[in-house]
């Protein structure tokens, strides 16, 4: 994987090389998971796709981080980078991903492979296509377990049944021999979760885990993830475009836009005191049942930017209603994540008092 060299070449990257910061940057962080200045690029015939462009965040054990953003904002690409699941041939990754004191981007692919499934696991959007159609659900869980645990097949099988039972699959002992297509959508996602949790991972990444499911099943799956998280005390990243899902599950929220972080904070910060115009847009475009359907949904104007030609300056400025409120910095300077209040970071050029004023007078009343 080319990421090893590039991870180090970041040292000469001017934007990040602020005296001493880079030296400190290679020290293992105190957080369980820390992503620093992650950049993921895909060279294509049309140009270089900057899918993730300088993203940093951290996550502790036992906490749930929600990553929110439109399609193409880099959410899934980020998670696949943490898992080391990008094809090295057509992906350029730089930055640091520290998991429990190890820099994954600086490790060999073989080492990351051994961590996958055991220390970090992932569940995917569509459980029907994510499970192998030719093997029984049990076989797939047994395989996941035995690759990391030196146990006999029968022991692994008992473990698989136990995992299926724990994720709430009735008659787990007989359903273990069913094929994925014999499961309903919700059961399939439960089985997927059972597989991901079979080796008791410290980090669970759920990439749009409820998007492909019926609305009635969604809540059950979210409940299950929450229950299992408290039981296993793992760190969870939940990736979604659905603010309702993060409101349900996440303690911390990272809002992404065009491959960068736009706003980061606790769920309370993001839902009660959001400071980024993009977050405002997301909140305004979300339906509220308690408003009796009277409030009109306000869409975010324009379309997501091309990741090949990201707008200069703040990537959100062409769609931002308030970009005019500062002195043209939006068009030229890339805003950095800065602390607006303790633990609440925003990447926006608007002066803080303007943000507070707009939120208090314009946005909050209309929600």
């Amino acid at each position, binding site marked *: 994987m080319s990421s090893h060299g590039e991870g180090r070449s970041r040292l000469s990257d001017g934007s990040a090389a602020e005296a001493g910061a880079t030296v400190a940057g290679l020290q293992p962080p105190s957080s369980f998971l820390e992503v620093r200045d992650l950049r993921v690029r895909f060279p294509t015939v049309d140009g270089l796709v900057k899918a993730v462009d300088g993203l940093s965040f951290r996550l502790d054990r036992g906490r749930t981080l929600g990553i929110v953003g439109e399609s193409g904002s880099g959410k899934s690409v980020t998670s696949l980078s943490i898992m080391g699941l990008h094809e090295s041939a057509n992906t350029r990754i730089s930055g640091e991903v520290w998991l429990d004191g190890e820099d994954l981007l600086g490790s060999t692919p073989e080492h990351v*492979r051994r961590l996958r499934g055991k220390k970090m696991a992932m569940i995917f959007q569509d459980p029907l296509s994510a499970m192998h159609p030719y093997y029984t659900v049990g076989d797939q869980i047994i395989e996941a377990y035995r690759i990391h645990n030196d146990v006999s097949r029968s022991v692994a099988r008992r473990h698989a049944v136990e995992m299926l039972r724990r994720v709430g699959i009735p008659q787990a002992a007989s359903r273990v021999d069913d094929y994925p297509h014999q499961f309903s959508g919700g059961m399939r996602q439960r089985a997927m979760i059972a597989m991901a949790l079979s080796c008791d991972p410290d980090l669970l990444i759920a990439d749009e885990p409820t998007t492909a499911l019926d609305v009635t099943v969604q809540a059950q799956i979210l409940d299950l993830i929450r229950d299992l998280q408290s039981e296993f005390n793992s760190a969870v990243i939940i990736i979604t475009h659905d603010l309702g899902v993060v409101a349900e599950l996440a303690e911390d929220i990272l809002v992404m836009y065009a491959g960068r972080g736009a706003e980061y904070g606790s769920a309370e910060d993001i839902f009660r005191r959001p400071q980024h115009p993009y977050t405002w847009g997301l909140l305004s475009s979300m339906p509220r049942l308690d408003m009796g359907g009277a409030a009109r949904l306000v869409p975010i104007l324009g379309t997501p930017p091309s990741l090949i030609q990201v707008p200069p300056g703040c990537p959100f400025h062409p769609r931002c209603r308030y970009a005019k409120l500062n002195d043209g910095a939006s068009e030229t300077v890339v805003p950095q994540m800065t602390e607006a209040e303790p633990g609440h970071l925003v990447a926006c050029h608007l002066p803080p008092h303007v943000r507070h004023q707009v939120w208090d007078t314009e946005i909050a009343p209309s929600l």
Partner: protein
Amino acid sequence: MITFIIRRLIAAVLLLFVVSVVTFSIFFLVPRLAGASADDLASRYVGKTAGAEQIHETAEKLGFTDSLPVQYGRFAKGLVAGADYNTGPTIEHCPAPCFGYSFITQNPVWPDLLDRLPVTLSLAVGAAIIWLLTGVTIGVISALRKGSFFDRAAMGIALGGVSLPIFFTGLLSLSIFSYKLGLTASGGSYTAFADNPATWAYDLILPWITLAFLYAALYARLTRAGMLETMHEDYIRTARAKGLPERRVVLKHGLRPTLTPILTIFGLDLGLLLGGAVLTESTFSLPGIGKYAVDAITNNDLPKVLGVTIVAAFFIIFANLVVDILYAVVDPRVRLS
């Protein structure tokens, strides 16, 4: 699973019935529709010197004057139970499956076909093993090393393989390996496996390779395309996310779904070849069913052509049946639908 097999068996039998009706129509109904009389049909069964009266007598004896359903009934009975021909002093029994007697040699067709079957069987099965192993292996490696020198070289050769006809590659390989280098047999000879396995292989090695080259090229391309598609499936990403070694991801999770559609094509190809590898057998003068068919057609020997048609159709239906059942074994989703 049992009901699945029974359903497929019934379908196969029905299909055989349809084939027999169609074959009967081609040989006996279509000429009538085109304006041939019963006597015209019978004239093919008698010598050139026969008079009109003899021809008419033959037409009646062979039943060409009967109604069509009766004729078909007799035809079908011949296939299933055999037929009796009244040759005057004695009644000659033609055992099932009776396709009739060759116009030229006067021999019954079926024993002739049986004689030639081992040749075609040896050729087709031997070549099939070679092309499956090489084609699939090359296809998988090409897909995994997409864009590499190996991939481009293999796909270039494969393009040649699918484009060059057997009578070209066959003659070329004969001239090089047999006539110039003297490494292989020069064609035209066949030794039964039971008599001498070494000679059997020696006689067949060049036809095997020539035939397998064409199909291996095709299968390499199919496997490569299938593998490239499969490796982008979500379940492959899941397999990697579980932390499986790449080898296992490819061989266990990637290969099986890639091979299922290839299995279908393989069944058809093998079935088709068992009905006579016409070009290969002709090029190497192998006395198999394909060469038998060509000779029969050249000589207008209708009963032989009829026999080959039905036997070839049988092999294709049989191969399809086997593939259907194998498919259900391989892909659990098929069993239930």
